[in-house]
């Protein structure tokens, strides 16, 4: 949906997706390595613009560009969607980060902060293709204990594949969030040192 939320971290920020981001979105979503575990995206620019326009009208869907605060480069995509107002829960995903970027940790921290501290959700889940071991492990490493297998949940490349669902409540986030935040802050200091050294 159209929104004006900007979620600022220490090195990266999440800002609303705009039509002008279409080429960057296609660059990531049509990259065969990065999109290996995503639903197939057409490389047709007009189709992607149509998709973004439909997204603008879809309630409870917040799609973001992940941007470097220092050099304004775009480094990834992330979204929080299927926000159910009555049950106060939602899902996050559409997550792609450029492999050379160190944004993943801060990005995960920011999307949970947005869900729990801005939208005041009570529970958020993330569903990952089970074969995508690095990302499944990332969620495990965040300390998310609630985890279950959803059999044949996704259709990827014409095949049904299992998903792993990680769920987190706002109370659990208050326990595990500080560790992720502190890691993101310490990492951002190193990234700042890299800029200073140039």
């Amino acid at each position, binding site marked *: 949906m159209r929104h004006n939320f900007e979620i600022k971290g220490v090195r990266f920020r999440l800002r609303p997706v705009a039509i002008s981001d279409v080429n960057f979105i296609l660059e990531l979503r049509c990259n065969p390595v990065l999109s290996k575990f995503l639903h197939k995206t057409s490389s047709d620019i007009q189709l992607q613009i149509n998709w973004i326009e439909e997204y603008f009208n879809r309630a409870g869907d917040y799609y973001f560009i992940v941007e470097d605060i220092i050099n304004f480069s775009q480094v990834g995509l992330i979204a929080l969607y299927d926000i159910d107002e009555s049950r106060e829960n939602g899902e996050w995903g559409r997550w792609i980060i450029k492999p050379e970027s*160190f944004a*993943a*940790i801060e990005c*995960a921290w920011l999307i949970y902060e947005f869900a729990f501290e801005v939208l005041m959700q009570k529970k958020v889940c993330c569903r990952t293709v089970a074969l995508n*071991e*690095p*990302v499944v*492990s*990332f969620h*495990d*490493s*965040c300390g998310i204990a609630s985890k279950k297998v959803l059999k044949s949940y996704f259709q990827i490349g014409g095949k049904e594949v299992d998903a792993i669902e990680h769920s987190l409540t706002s109370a659990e986030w208050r326990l595990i969030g500080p560790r*992720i935040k502190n*890691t993101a802050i*310490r*990492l951002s200091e*190193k*990234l700042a*040192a*890299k800029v200073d*050294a140039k």
Partner: protein
Amino acid sequence: MSNQIEKKVIDILSTILKTDIGVDSSKINTSSWDSLKNIEIIFALEDTFGLSFSIGQIEKMISVKTITVEIEKNET
């Protein structure tokens, strides 16, 4: 010296990744070695050895062997 560093690196990685780690372990062949754990490993190594790694070094530190090499570089 190199063997001592390598042993310490393996101990730290085994503790953080909660799995058996050997001299040939790397991000590629260790499923629990994800990007969050990777940074936690780097910070644990910095704290243990009293070092500070650059982003350029961190990008190279993706196996027991390359980690050991980068620690040795910082210590000399």
